[in-house]
């Protein structure tokens, strides 16, 4: 318990350092653009692949579980759309990103710590926490909503393709279903969740990397911890946010 409180304290001290005024805004801007490509654009591929198959499976599952003549088939499209937008595209994507981006951030920053690169920054009078972490946070906050939108589109596409190829639903019914009683707020809700998750992934992973002590072994451990802690926090906040935003 004491260890936990200490960690929590350290985490907020780090955040305070991260959000202090940048020394050279231009350099931070360049770093942010760089991180956007590195952490964001490079994740488009994996997110697309996963979303595609996720959408496909959800459609088939919904179809096979609702094989009932009085149940109109367009509802398959509707159910598929809602579960993708509400849960899968934001939460599952976040969990995937926690694995990919989180471990990446923790090991990058952790390596910089154990090879004295962070010392070198501090030594020069650079606020290392802010310089290293702020661009990553801003980049993921800006880019991850886009990833979620991509995920939603690709997943629905995957659902459509799987559903029509397997013959469980006609193309017309599916398209009718995904348009039927559409609530735009669900998209907003999904984006809000994504923003929270992006912040969790980046800051928690950076925290684990930033305070590494030791050598490459500890860096490895830190990146595992980063993934575990951010995943658990994502699931926890998923419950909290769902309660707050949809009740």
């Amino acid at each position, binding site marked *: 318990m004491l260890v936990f409180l200490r960690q929590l304290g350290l985490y907020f001290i780090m955040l305070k350092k991260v959000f202090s005024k940048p020394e*050279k805004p231009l350099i931070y801007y360049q770093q942010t653009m760089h991180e956007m490509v590195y952490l964001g654009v490079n994740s488009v591929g994996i997110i697309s692949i996963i979303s595609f198959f996720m959408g496909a499976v959800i459609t088939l599952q919904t179809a096979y579980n609702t094989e009932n003549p009085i149940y109109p088939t367009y509802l398959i499209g509707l159910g598929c759309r809602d579960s993708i937008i509400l849960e899968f595209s934001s939460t599952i994507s976040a969990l995937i990103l926690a694995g990919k981006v989180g471990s990446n951030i923790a090991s990058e920053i952790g*390596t910089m710590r154990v*090879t*004295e*690169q962070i*010392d*070198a920054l501090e*030594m*020069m*009078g650079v606020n290392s926490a802010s310089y290293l972490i702020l661009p990553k946070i801003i980049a993921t906050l800006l880019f991850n909503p886009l990833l979620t939108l991509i995920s939603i589109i690709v997943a629905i596409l995957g659902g459509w393709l799987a559903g029509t190829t397997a013959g469980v639903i006609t193309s017309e019914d599916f398209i009718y279903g995904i348009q039927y009683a559409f609530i735009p707020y669900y998209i907003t809700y999904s984006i809000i969740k994504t923003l929270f998750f992006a912040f969790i992934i980046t800051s928690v992973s950076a925290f684990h990397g930033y305070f590494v002590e030791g050598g490459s072994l500890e860096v490895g451990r830190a990146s595992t911890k980063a993934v575990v802690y951010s995943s658990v926090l994502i699931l926890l906040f998923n419950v909290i946010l769902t309660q707050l935003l949809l009740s």
Partner: protein
Amino acid sequence: MIRVENLNKTFDGRLVLDNISVTFETGKTNLIIGRSGSGKTVLLKSIVGLHEPDNGEIWFEDILFNNLDFEERKKIREQMGMLFQGSALFDFFTVEQNVRFPLDMFTGKTLEEKTERVNFCLKRVDIINSNKLYPSELSGGMKKRVAIARAIALNPKYLFCDEPNSGLDPLTAILIDELIKELTEEYSMTTIVNTHDMNSVVEIGEKVIFIHEGIKCWEGTNKEILHSDNQILNDFVFANSLAKQLKSTENNNSV
């Protein structure tokens, strides 16, 4: 001039630096020597403020450094250059970007001016035609030299080198030592070098302090070090056969 007074540093209750007082002189290469684990790196990092000492004072000229806050320290830090034990080059930057980094962060120079300065510093440490390489593509000795170039980019008044020549072949090691000494004289810097290499001591040790288990045991010059009667120091110095020979030939000559 850098003055350290009664410096103590503990880690988790374990005393690592025990009441160190020493003055490092301007325009000279000041050496901190001692066995592995004796506290050299901790001393150097305490001086530059990367470790907070438990108590004691660190003076840069007439400024009490360890009382300053982050912003005030920054002004002095801009006058410091440091070479870390493992070079600590930023591995996401090229050689050129590494050396340019302090200029980017702390000067308002144009890109041409900065590039000119970068090339000057790199030439000074004999790194040419490697501007676009990444640290992972350099040899250990080249990394150290690039790190020196980065350390001198802002024309520092104070230069700190943590084992600049460990892990290098003897010839490269001597070249790096000489480079540090030349730079120190050329820009009349206050230079502190950590080392356990007796060659460096003999070559560039204008002022030497010897640390053993966190205690300053001895202080003097490279001329005096071979004739000390401090037993712990002698054990350290004459572990090296070259130094042994040097001493015996000197004794023979004087007989």
